[in-house]
């Protein structure tokens, strides 16, 4: 009889404490920002989420895996794995292939100035006005390819971005012999 009483007291004490404890700790939101800071911010949606912030939330709540971001590629996956202490996995091919950075290019003589691509561009990298010429600002463009689809006359093509006039290859040692 006393045993039951004791267990009851413990249970009540724990219940009281449980409902008065704090909800999501501030720690949680700060981490989401830190995850978001690692993503390439192309807002391209290739990871299946409408933009980088939603993808960061999904990662935080374990709904999304850390290898769904082709623009970020191996580098972002490694950084996310280090931050969250998870296994480094190769990029998931379902979401696309990792390739060199691409920049949109509007072919001036076909463009009819319909402003559809300006609306589609998530980072306002296309300058232009209705019925006037549109051009892509190369520094601002993140290569998310969202402007290619809405263009009625298909005048936007994705070109490989050449840095400072010469293509810098990272891993090329001077002469690799066998």
């Amino acid at each position, binding site marked *: 009889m006393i045993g039951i009483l004791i267990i009851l007291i413990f249970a009540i004490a724990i219940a009281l404490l449980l409902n008065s404890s704090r909800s999501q700790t501030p720690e949680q939101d700060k981490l989401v920002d830190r995850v978001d*800071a690692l993503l390439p911010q192309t807002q391209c949606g290739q990871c299946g989420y409408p*933009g980088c912030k939603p993808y960061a939330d999904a990662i935080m709540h374990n709904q999304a895996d850390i290898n769904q971001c082709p623009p970020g590629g191996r*580098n972002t996956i490694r950084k996310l794995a280090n931050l969250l202490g998870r296994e480094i996995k190769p990029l998931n091919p379902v979401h696309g292939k990792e390739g060199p950075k691409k920049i949109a290019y509007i072919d001036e003589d076909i463009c009819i100035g319909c402003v559809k691509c300006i609306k589609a561009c998530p*980072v306002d990298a296309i300058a232009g006005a209705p019925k006037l010429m549109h051009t892509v600002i190369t520094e601002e463009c993140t290569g998310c390819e969202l402007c290619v689809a809405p263009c009625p006359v298909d005048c936007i093509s994705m070109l490989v971005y050449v840095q400072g006039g*010469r*293509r*810098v290859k990272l891993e090329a040692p001077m002469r690799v012999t066998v």
Partner: protein
Amino acid sequence: MNRELHSFPGGLQIPPHKELSNSKTSLITPLPERIILPLQQHIGSPAVPIVKTGEKVLKGQVIARASGYVSVPIHASTSGRIIDIGNYTVPDSLGLKAPCIVIEPDGDDAWFEIKPTRDYLSIDPKALQEVIREAGIVGLGGAGFPAHVKLNEGMENIVDTLIINGVECEPYISCDDRLIREKPGYIVNGARMIRHAVQAKHCVIALEEDMPEAYAALKELIDDDIELVQLPVKYPQGGERQLIKALTGKEVPSGGLPIHIGIVMHNVGTAAAAYRAVTRGEPLISRYITVSGEVKDPRNLQVLLGTPVKHCADQCGYEVKEGQAIILGGPMMGMYVNNMLMPVIKTTNCVLVTSTFNQQPEMPCIRCGQCAEVCPAELLPQQLYWYARAKNHDRLREYHLFDCIECGCCSYVCPSNIQLVQYYRKAKRQIMQDEQTMSGANRARQHFISRNDRLAREAQEQNEEMLAESETDETDKQSFIQAAVERTRAKRAQMKKPEKQQDHDE
């Protein structure tokens, strides 16, 4: 007053091999058939060409103007016709092509008009800096940093010591040694000129003990205002931080510049070129280079900039042999190149042909710590190696990767023969690239957020307008309904009155 010398940490004693080329006088090389002048011969943004193909240019004429503050113009090394502006192989560690201007010399070497100024000592510093910038003077020690930028810093801050760096610690290279022996006047007067410009309290010309003739040559011309110091031979004493520590005992703060501790340093070649630019109005179009190693007649040459390396090597009897390596610069910090097509540019100081170069395979690191002992920047090369392999950028920053001066001492002593400097270069490039993409990503986020705010604001404004219109209709409607109600009430009241009368009648 003899200056109390210190010694810098780490460093190596390596065989100098200088006697091969420093005894013979320098030869002025004949004109090559092609002059190839890359637009990027200095640290900073590349120059922009102002000539068109087919145009005739004179010697010393500006053919590409500087773009931006940290940039210098390019001059035609000889008179001739511009035959092409395009991509040619340039002395670059990755062996890539870059835009260059190609001149076909016409042989008569006619000078463009030059404006020498006599009183180089009392010239006002601002004008001096302008002349040096126009003459395209860069640090000839190997870095290629525009000299006018360093000068400007010197003018704006109080400078305690001006050091003219004549220490040539790289083996085989003796071009500074020959320059001092053949033109000591240029160097001493150049030093006085720069000292006048930056108002330095002391001025020191530093040499090494293995350059006695150069010491003697300078000794005669120096009265008492400039100190001439001979330092014990030690590699890499020619490095900026190491020489400052050796001469003054002060350490340049990590990540900082010598100007932060009141010191300005110029190479002897830069001082001489500056003096020539001011007093004889000649821009930087030629320089001393050493051709040494396994060539029949290793010596120093006075070479016009843009002369293909092959042409210089042929002057010293070079034949192609199997298993030979061509290195631009010294054996410790020089660049291995596959061919000799690239031209001599402002920062090339030596062409080395050798077959005894390091090509053993790489063994894993056994953490022996020999590299940490010899590192002049007192870093931990073995930890940097492990973190560079793990691509752990923030650890690399913590371990001061960017303080590494790539002198090669660590790879020299590594028993596992690891090319550590190559790992650090690659890691530095990756970190730079990474930071570039990160800043790009941040900018993209700002744009995305501001775009969303703008869209939200516009949507808000739209439905506010709709609301406002409806309210105005609202108010008209209200008044309209009100009026209608009154009318009906009035009419009803009217109808009631006659009704009452009818009641009475019945």
